[in-house]
């Protein structure tokens, strides 16, 4: 139970700071109510409340004159999955949901994964920098630290099994001032305490020899050998593919809209595609995980979305950038921003350079819009680390929303009040790194709720074969593919050198997503410097020919992102 004196203290300091706040208790959770006219104050109140070690912060303070944007869901309403009974229902197909789905597919369970979008990994799991962190900046008593350290060593095997690229050249923090040299010892000690292995101190000479494009102002650096880079969306797609191959059902464009909970048990889960009857529900709903918890009558945390913008640079900029993820040490001045990794200049597994991210609190959970200031900020911020990359190198940019809680830690646990829900919530950076071991622990929790050992899936095959990337094969291997299927010899995307055969193969994956971006994220057609200017219409044409979808029903990415306007029986000139 939450200490009553602490509750009193919390109430006192919150009401002193915010006179029109109402603080109450729900069991051991602090509940905040009221109407504020500044969004930053709502966030600040949440952070203040989180300092009192209660059972959780439920921040229900509303913003004056703000109409909350409803969750965007597919307009499809049908009964496709109506009446589905399953052992486990996972909500959300990001890195966490798909990692759990694949882990559960080791067992003979009926597992269903629902995702409201047209593809997996359309939110935070694709909108990040793909860094496998070592966790130097994490407090040792956090779940972030616990799961990150357990997962770091798992990626090599995972990448082998899923046939996805994993670069492990280490991670660098660069220091520009000589006088902070004693910090090195502190970092060494921190690394030891966190059981980080392969930590080295590089002097200026060694640093510039390894990374000649790093600023001449660099004095020394700390090198973490464990640091790595993956392609985040490719990883999620691979996890989903493998889960499907091992028997998991993935339902796209399926949004959870409500639940029926009786006596602390979820009886049914309502979606736009029918009612599902699961024994156990796993909440991996990202920025909507507190909403899902509320539906399950089990909310004891609140998501305060935090937006980050990142830019992708042309592959040509790679020779002017770093071969490892690199960031400049900037002291501990801004604690709030420290909750999200510092970011920096990062080489991608595909040969581009990524810079980012920014971090801004936002009331919107799905506002992925970008602005010129954020991009300018990124270059401003990283100029002292990588002086040879320029805004003119940018080929695209994007925004992501972190699912941060006020406790700024992961929530990995069974329900507080509802017994058949398990939360994998509040997952923000380093969620991508931490996902493999989170998934293992969630399965252990499933077993607890299941109340008997989970039966093994004797047919489980951990191996997933990726679509061949012909431009990475030897000439002999490439020739073999082309001889078997001439489409592999017909290049459609000129910037990334992607063949028609690869595009058709992507449409025939276990998880087939016939959208322009569905193809782009699977085989990279359209990822290059012309950004699909040439191949976009050609890929649309291939999707049309292969799937027989009418042109005006092929989407760019999300539902409703039509590329072509219908021409039948309509008069132009008006919307």
């Amino acid at each position, binding site marked *: 139970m939450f200490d009553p004196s602490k509750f009193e203290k919390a109430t006192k300091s919150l009401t002193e700071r915010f006179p029109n706040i109402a603080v109450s208790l729900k069991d051991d959770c602090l509940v905040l109510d009221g109407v504020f006219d500044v969004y930053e104050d709502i966030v600040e109140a949440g952070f203040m409340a989180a300092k009192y070690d209660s059972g959780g912060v439920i921040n229900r303070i509303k913003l004056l004159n703000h109409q909350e944007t409803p969750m*965007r869901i597919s307009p499809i309403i049908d009964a496709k999955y109506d009446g589905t009974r399953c052992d486990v229902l996972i909500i959300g197909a990001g890195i966490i949901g798909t990692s759990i789905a694949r882990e559960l597919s080791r067992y003979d369970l009926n597992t269903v994964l629902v995702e409201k979008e047209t593809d997996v990994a359309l939110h935070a799991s694709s909108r990040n920098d793909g860094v496998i962190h070592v966790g130097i900046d994490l407090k040792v008593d956090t779940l972030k630290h616990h799961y990150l350290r357990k997962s770091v060593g798992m990626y090599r095997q995972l990448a082998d099994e899923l046939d996805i690229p994993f670069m492990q050249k280490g991670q660098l923090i660069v220091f520009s001032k000589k006088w902070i040299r004693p910090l090195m010892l502190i970092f060494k000690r921190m690394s030891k305490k966190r059981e980080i292995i392969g930590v080295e101190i590089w002097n200026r000479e060694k640093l510039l020899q390894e990374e000649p494009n790093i600023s001449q102002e660099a004095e020394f650096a700390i090198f973490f050998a464990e640091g790595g880079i993956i392609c985040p969306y490719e990883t999620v797609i691979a996890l989903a593919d493998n889960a499907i191959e091992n028997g998991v059902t993935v339902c796209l464009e399926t949004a959870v809209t409500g639940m029926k909970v009786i006596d602390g048990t979820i009886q049914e889960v309502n979606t736009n595609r029918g009612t599902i009857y699961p024994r156990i529900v796993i909440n991996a709903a990202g920025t909507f995980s507190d909403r899902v918890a509320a539906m399950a009558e089990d909310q004891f945390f609140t998501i305060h979305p935090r937006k980050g913008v990142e830019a992708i640079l042309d592959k040509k900029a790679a020779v002017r950038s770093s071969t490892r993820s690199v960031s400049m040490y900037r002291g501990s001045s801004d604690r709030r921003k420290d909750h999200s990794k510092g970011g920096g200049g990062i080489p991608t597994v595909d040969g581009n350079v990524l810079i980012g991210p920014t971090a801004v609190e936002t009331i919107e959970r*799905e506002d*992925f*819009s*970008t*602005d*010129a200031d954020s*991009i300018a900020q990124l270059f401003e911020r990283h100029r002292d680390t990588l002086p040879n990359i320029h805004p003119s190198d*940018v*080929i*695209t*940019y*994007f925004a992501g929303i972190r699912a941060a809680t006020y406790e700024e830690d992961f929530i990995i646990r069974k329900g507080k009040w509802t017994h058949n829900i398990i939360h994998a919530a509040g997952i923000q950076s380093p969620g991508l790194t931490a996902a493999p071991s989170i998934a293992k622990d969630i399965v252990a929790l499933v077993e607890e709720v299941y109340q008997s050992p989970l039966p093994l899936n004797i047919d489980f095959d951990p191996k997933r074969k990726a679509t061949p990337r*012909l*431009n990475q094969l030897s*000439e002999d291997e*490439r*020739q073999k593919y*082309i*001889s078997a299927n*001439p*489409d592999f*010899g*017909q*290049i459609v995307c*000129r910037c990334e*050198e992607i*063949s028609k055969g690869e595009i058709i193969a992507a449409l025939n994956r276990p998880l087939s997503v016939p959208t322009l971006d569905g193809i782009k994220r699977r085989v990279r057609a359209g990822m290059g*410097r*012309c*950004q*699909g*200017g*040439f191949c*976009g*219409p050609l890929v*649309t*044409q291939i999707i049309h020919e292969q799937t027989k979808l009418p*042109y*005006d029903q092929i*989407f*760019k*990415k*999300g*539902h*409703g*992102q*039509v*590329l*072509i*306007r219908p*021409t039948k029986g*309509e*008069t*132009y*000139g*008006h*919307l």
Partner: protein
Amino acid sequence: MAIYDLIVIGGGPAGLAAASTYNGTDKSILLIEREAQLGGILKQCIHDGFGLTRYKEKLSGPEYAEREIELLKGHQVEIRTLAFVTKIARENDVFHLTMVTRTGIEHVQGRRLILATGCRERTGKQVAIHGTNPSGVLTAGSAQYYMNILGQMPTKRCVILGSGDIGLIMARRITLEGGHVIGVYEIKSTPSGLTRNLVQCLDDFAIPLYLSMTVTKVYGHERLIGVDVAKVDERMRVIIGTEQHIDCDGLILSVGLLPENEMAEQLSVPINNRTKGPYVDQGLETLVSGVYSCGNALHVSDVADMVSETGVIAAKSALGIEVPNRTLVEINANNDFLYVVPSHIAIEKSRKDIIFYFRVAACQENKTVRLLVNGHKAFERKYKHLRPPEMERFQADLSKYEPIESIVLTMEDSE
């Protein structure tokens, strides 16, 4: 393996003209095209205005391409379509190319190389379009492919950003197909397209052109639902408070073309930052000997006829006797000029009837342009108007200057 005397990469107007020029010799030539058909971008340019100088006729793009392909017939040109060059390397004065085709990986060799690889469109993100990321934001060339090749309508009601020629052509095209073009917005204070296109594509269809205006933000989570446009000052910065919202389902971008020189870069061909194409001499030979550049890969031209002309020049020069260790004199053009092509003169090569192309950096009136060789007038012409979108062309004989010490292109007020 047989070694071709010449390999031309790219079967658009530049590559086609280069290949057909090569006729009549006993030299072997290979033309490589990545698409299924020859013609390059001409295939989707169904409007007319092609061939006015080369054929003294008004042709559509596909017709112009057909004429060019016709010229190849009966020639010793070997043509490979659906062939994509993945690698180029040079060993002992022979170029080794690796191609991917529908039958597999192929290796070919050539003594000389003409790069006619065309250009690509600048994208929305490259001109920093921000806001959401809906469908309905596309380049004019993509819109043109959807409409003219696939027969599909990419927008019903659109804003066009940029007054480049393809944007103007698409404004007319969308209107003819029943779509509504709200206006063409140009960030510069002067239009980017040819005068004839401004008249025939906008004025004739009462499509407004807004100068010194740009798109500042796009809206819509699914399909585009609108854009904000705003005025900009003389330094192209948005003037706060001038934003206007426009409801539309399409944003068509015509914001510039960039020469594609990724293949030239593989051969370490130096690129001129002013043209974004290679530095070349009067025979359009790049600074890497044996490698020639023509068409829009060299510099983006206004009309296909000029593209063809550069193909002819490149081929004639690639046919000629090799001039090892050229002495190159750079042509000096100050900032009044956007660029001049060729950028260099090779002393040892024929200096008779050299064709020059230039663009001015800003609109000018009543100017005299001179080409001064060692201070002497090799060319002089008075221009009533000079505009950046209109490429100028002149011919000059530089054969009588010995030795050449300096070449300067100047612009002065006409008397």
